[in-house]
């Protein structure tokens, strides 16, 4: 990923910063400039809390270039507590029996292999809540 692009993405990638519509109060992640519902502009920054539930997932066995060292890895779509669905990698999912609706939380992790620019891209992933993956005492 090009450095200026990575720099532009640091709000959403590190802090799950999206936007909220002042007109209809819908929240968006990724950030948008115009609300697709009520067409208002002037959307305001909104930080999501990072709690989510699992909508669906897949284990990727045929990775794209830049992800070979991580394969097989798990990706999914998660429903943020505030509403939006988000596509992301799932972390710490090895050996965990995943299920639709299971609770997740955002963590910041390495997103891909270091590319030709040499730096590592970090960003959000979602992991199963520890409480949800441990057997009850």
């Amino acid at each position, binding site marked *: 990923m090009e450095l200026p692009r990575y720099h532009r993405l640091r709000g959403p990638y590190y802090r799950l910063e999206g936007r909220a519509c002042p007109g209809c109060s819908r929240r968006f992640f990724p950030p948008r400039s115009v609300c697709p519902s009520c067409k208002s502009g002037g959307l305001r920054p909104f930080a999501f809390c990072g709690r989510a539930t699992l909508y669906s997932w897949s284990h990727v*066995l045929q990775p794209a270039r830049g992800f070979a060292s991580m394969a097989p890895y798990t*990706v999914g779509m998660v429903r943020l507590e505030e509403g939006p669905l988000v*596509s992301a990698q799932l972390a710490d999912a090895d050996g965990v029996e995943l299920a639709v609706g299971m609770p997740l939380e955002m963590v910041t992790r390495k997103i891909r292999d270091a590319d030709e620019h040499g730096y590592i891209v970090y960003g959000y992933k979602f992991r199963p809540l520890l409480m949800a993956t441990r057997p009850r005492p």
Partner: protein
Amino acid sequence: MRDVSVIGVGQTPVGEHWDRSLRDLAVEAIAEARRDAGVDRVDALYVGNMLSGELAGQENVATLVADAAGLLPKEALKIEAACASGGAVLRAAYLAVACGAHDYVLAVGVEKMTDVLTDGVTAALALAADADYEAAHGITFAALNAILMRRYMHEHRASHEDFAPFSINAHRNAALNPRAMYRQPITVEDFIRSPIVADPINILDSAGISDGAAALLVCPASEARRARRPPVRITGSACATDTLGLAERTDPLVWQAVADSARLACGQAKLKPKDIDLFELHDAFTIVSVLSLEACGFADRGSALKLAAEGRIALEGDIPICTLGGLKGRGHPVGASGTYQLVETALQLRGEAGPAQVKGASIGMAQSVGGSGSVAVTHILQV
């Protein structure tokens, strides 16, 4: 607006053409379409292509093709709409003729994919997804469709095996098409045992990487009798869009752009889905066939698997799909697939589909989808 007809079609075999370039493939398809029409005149050339920059290191590809095909100094433009580029290029040609800007326009779809290794092609295809919020996270196209498929299976209590009839139908029909890439019939057991790409999606759920080009020559319907072969009228042409990111939809299992483009095209042709004799849909993955049939009104939500299980999608069924193999059986040279669908639909309506002929077909629908349902182009052809 003038009525527009397809007067000539051409296509290369789909396959791994190690000894042929993008240029060679496009020139062959164009030459065949012009011979088929028996008309020399070409006023403009539109080239449908998705990945020439990424896979061949070549942009300005419309000029390249015009030059190679001997069409200089005519207007030549590249039309790109991800995997819907092949549908979009006929739409561009249709609009140019319908509005009177040009009379004879060639639409060629071409893609050359096999020069690059699979991880490079996987990364290139992901360019149709959201670069910052899907592709940059390692979420491949197969993975996006796998996420959809697992959710569909969850909501409708379906098993992976329930999707097998789509792949079996595509291979059965491809076996009847000499231009198709995968001409071997397959069984349910083959489908179940196929290696996983991104679970639950396996190789036999997925249309294969391939090379190919297909071309159509269009002109005003009033002049179509000049052609050597029976003209095929374009009675509906529509394009619709949805969010680039799959997760940004209210319900990712509702493919609204697919639904909208089909509704608009049917409306223009004054037809309903039940009037359609055959449907060339965008079966890049089996789940896409399911969501497309449901979005276009051929099946209620959650019931497309039943439609396939009952054999209604077969050549002798009431809504035959992928009649010459579809993307799965014919092969999926991405930017060319939409033009292959349209060439095949025209051949069906001309009664020239050989052993894969749908008997009495007079109305065909071809639908090309780009991204994960983010752009769809639908055409209705009639004789």
